[in-house]
């Protein structure tokens, strides 16, 4: 009896402990979404919300909603007027004159002027920018004098961006740049309020941020949530339908799916979140109207170190590429609806009239096992070898990269009879080794910075800091030079296709597939899409019943 009494006392202690656990903090309950709230998972804290400092997708996602540049891109990737209502281009294609909308306002009510743009671009180029120089400043190097000023060799006064008056901005470029208007819609070209001179830390908290975009930030809880609300001073206020946008920061794909399934998110998955890839098939069945796969203009590929024998031999490299079954890879391994790649430029990038990939056939080679075997034998013979020395595929630690590498090792073993190791490395170590060309075959991925094929083509010039293959071809460099100085679109696309063919047929890289974004979105959400860069655009989104 005594014993049971003791047990009951201790039970009460336990119950009390659980109860206090429940009552520890008295914040208000999250509850369900209000009618027009749009809820997305951001996964992590944005490192910065200063347009001049941002370099990552999480930051861009928030910045794209709270700032607006001279132009915006629509769902098709076409340039539309933003803060600039119209513009003229000089005959030589180098000088742009922008007319700033007279009703463009900052969130504090100040007008957005041409002076703000001049100030902001020069600020981003400032080599002494606080807290650190802008990493993406090079995206402004198209402007005359920009590179010299940024690298400390020129004066700020020689940067060719000038506000003639409050509503007229004149910019002169180094060379005619066909995609300059599209570049203007990216964060580095966004304006910041001139008061940031007094407070460079403006973008670190919700209450000090003065913005000019469709939304303003009303709340920011570090590592937990960000809340946006429509900006009443935005010129297009009547087009903004969401009453609130809530970002959570949950960095776990199963948890994110659970949140979506329990109605805590209206959108789950790429680009800022993720869904468990082993559940793609079942999710597609379960939510046929909500499960979406959309291509983004990004390429997943393997680099080959062309400076290390026997990979100096083109036939050896070609054999490796031809012995990969890309259909099997996307349909049985990656499972996200990825598109097998036989070229460099992904679908979704503009050509002359249509997408570049529709205008220029991207199948530069065909998988062929017999040919691969024959090429390998020939290549090895030319190098004086009887069999391929041991080598490894290097990638940064990640489930998907591991699965892809394992599949490819398997294909090479079965198809070519060669043994390949796989080696995963921690991210920073991996990047260091890749940049130092301390690898044989390494994973790589590349996404578009702007909507033009040159964003991919320029990667493999001998001077490119992201080439990492050792591929150096004077003919290729010259082609890229010519592309950069050609403004006639058809001729330019032809040159681009020549360069692409040259690179792919050198087999310095093994294109594997074009990326896709996989996401779940509530069926009643409309007007929210993922653009060519893979950014989620929700500023003009709405709930369907609202429209009726």
């Amino acid at each position: 009896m005594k014993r049971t009494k003791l047990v009951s006392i201790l039970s009460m202690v336990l119950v009390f402990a659980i109860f206090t656990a429940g009552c520890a903090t008295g914040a208000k309950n999250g509850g369900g979404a209000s009618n027009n709230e749009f809820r997305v998972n951001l996964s992590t804290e944005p490192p910065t919300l200063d347009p001049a400092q941002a370099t990552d997708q999480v930051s861009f996602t928030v910045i794209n909603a709270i700032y607006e540049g001279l132009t915006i891109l629509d769902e098709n990737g076409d340039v539309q007027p933003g803060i600039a209502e119209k513009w003229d281009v000089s005959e030589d294609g180098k000088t742009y004159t922008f007319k700033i909308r007279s009703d463009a306002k900052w969130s504090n009510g100040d007008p957005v002027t041409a002076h703000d743009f001049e100030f902001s671009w020069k600020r981003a180029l400032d080599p002494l920018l606080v807290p650190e120089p802008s990493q993406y400043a090079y995206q402004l190097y198209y402007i005359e004098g920009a590179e010299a000023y940024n690298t400390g060799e020129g004066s700020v006064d020689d940067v060719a961006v000038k506000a003639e008056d409050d509503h007229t901005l004149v910019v002169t470029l180094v060379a005619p740049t066909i995609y300059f208007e599209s570049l203007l819609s990216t964060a580095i070209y966004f304006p910041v309020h001139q008061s940031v001179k007094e407070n460079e830390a403006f973008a670190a908290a919700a209450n000090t941020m003065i913005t000019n975009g469709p939304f303003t930030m009303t709340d920011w809880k570090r590592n937990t949530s960000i809340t946006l609300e429509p900006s009443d001073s935005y010129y297009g206020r009547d087009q903004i339908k969401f009453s609130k946008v809530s970002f959570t920061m949950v960095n776990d794909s199963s948890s994110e799916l659970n949140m979506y399934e329990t109605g805590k998110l209206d959108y789950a998955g790429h680009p800022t979140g993720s869904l468990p890839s082993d559940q793609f098939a079942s999710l597609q069945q379960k939510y046929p109207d909500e499960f979406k796969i959309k291509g983004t203009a990004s390429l997943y590929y393997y680099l080959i170190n062309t400076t290390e024998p026997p990979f100096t031999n083109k036939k050896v490299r070609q054999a490796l590429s031809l012995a990969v079954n890309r259909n099997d890879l996307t349909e049985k391994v990656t499972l996200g609806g990825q598109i097998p790649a036989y070229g460099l430029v992904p679908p979704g990038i503009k050509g002359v009239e249509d997408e570049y990939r529709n205008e220029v056939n991207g199948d530069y080679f065909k998988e062929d096992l017999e040919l691969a075997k024959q090429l390998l034998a020939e290549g090895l013979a030319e190098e004086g070898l009887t069999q391929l020395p041991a080598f490894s595929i290097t990638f940064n630690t990640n489930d998907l990269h591991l699965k892809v590498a394992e599949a490819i090792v398997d294909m090479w073993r079965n198809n070519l009879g060669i043994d390949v190791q796989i080696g995963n490395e921690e991210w920073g170590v991996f990047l260091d080794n890749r940049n130092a060309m301390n690898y044989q075959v390494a994973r790589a991925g590349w996404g578009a910075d702007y909507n033009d094929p040159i964003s991919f083509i320029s990667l493999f010039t001998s001077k490119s800091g992201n080439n990492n293959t050792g591929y150096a071809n004077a003919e290729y460099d010259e082609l890229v030079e010519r592309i950069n100085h050609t403004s006639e679109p058809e001729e330019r696309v032809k040159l681009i296709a020549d360069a692409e063919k040259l690179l792919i047929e050198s087999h310095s890289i093994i294109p594997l597939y074009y990326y896709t974004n996989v996401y779940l979105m509530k069926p009643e959400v409309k007007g929210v899409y993922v653009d060519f860069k893979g950014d989620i655009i929700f500023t003009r989104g709405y709930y369907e019943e609202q429209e009726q």
Partner: protein
Amino acid sequence: MVRYVIEKILYMLLSLFVLASATFFLMKAIPGNPFQSEKNIPPAIQQMLMEKYGFDKPVWEQYVHYIGNLLKLDFGTSMKQQYVTVETVIKSGFAYSVQLGLLAMIVSVAAGVLLGLIAALNHRKFLDGFTIFIAVLGVSIPNFVIASALQYFFGVQLRWFNVTGLNGPLDYVLPVIALSFLPTAFIARLTRSSMLEVLSADYIKTARAKGLSGRVILVKHALRNAIMPVVTYVGPMTANIITGSVIVEQIFGIGGLGKDFVNSITNRDYTLIMGLTLFYAVILMLARLITDIAYGFIDPRIKLIRGRGGA
């Protein structure tokens, strides 16, 4: 006693200095830097950044500079999260970790001691076997499996709790249970074995012979002695839970300190790596110190004098 504590604290400071130095050089030895990504920035800009943060200087010079700042209690600003100081990161993240950790500890001590007692008092009976079975499960299943399972059953299937976030009292239930599983199991086993030992000790027999009530024997004589190993365990375990709740925080989307710690390493966020490592070290050392002091109160036989008391 006071002298003992002062001595301990001096040792702690020395250990922290050694730890800070070792971490600094190890960290600098890892390849990579904070300004890397899939897309390389032009070498000129990379160079400007390295100069800005003094990474172009020899490592020993950077080390002297860092230790100098440390002595001024200046831990610096994160290199990835702009304008966020190490103090801010600790303040915002640690609150969550502490709340969860302490709650989990309270729950596990209560539940663990209770289960251990039940087992000991029913020695070799069904309840004993049953609690030990539960304890073995608790020790062997990793907490992320438990966390995911709890989230799925109670969050998605039954919808009793929100699957993520920490916005209301109920939101604490699942993460706290997930965190307390292992320590509960551990404490249950500790309590059981030491209780069994104590119950067969001579002084308990004496107490019984004197005709004391079962409850008095159990609480005043047996439990007080049997709890010693549990106290030893609770201090370091609390520190472990507080500093090691990374995965549970990740699954339940809680912005605790663990997330920052892991990310800081991936990002080569040097200032944050240093600041958080030192902070965690202080927490662990304090937990040991408190445990030592607690001994003195529970067991008068242990005197806190020079060279005794462990740690």
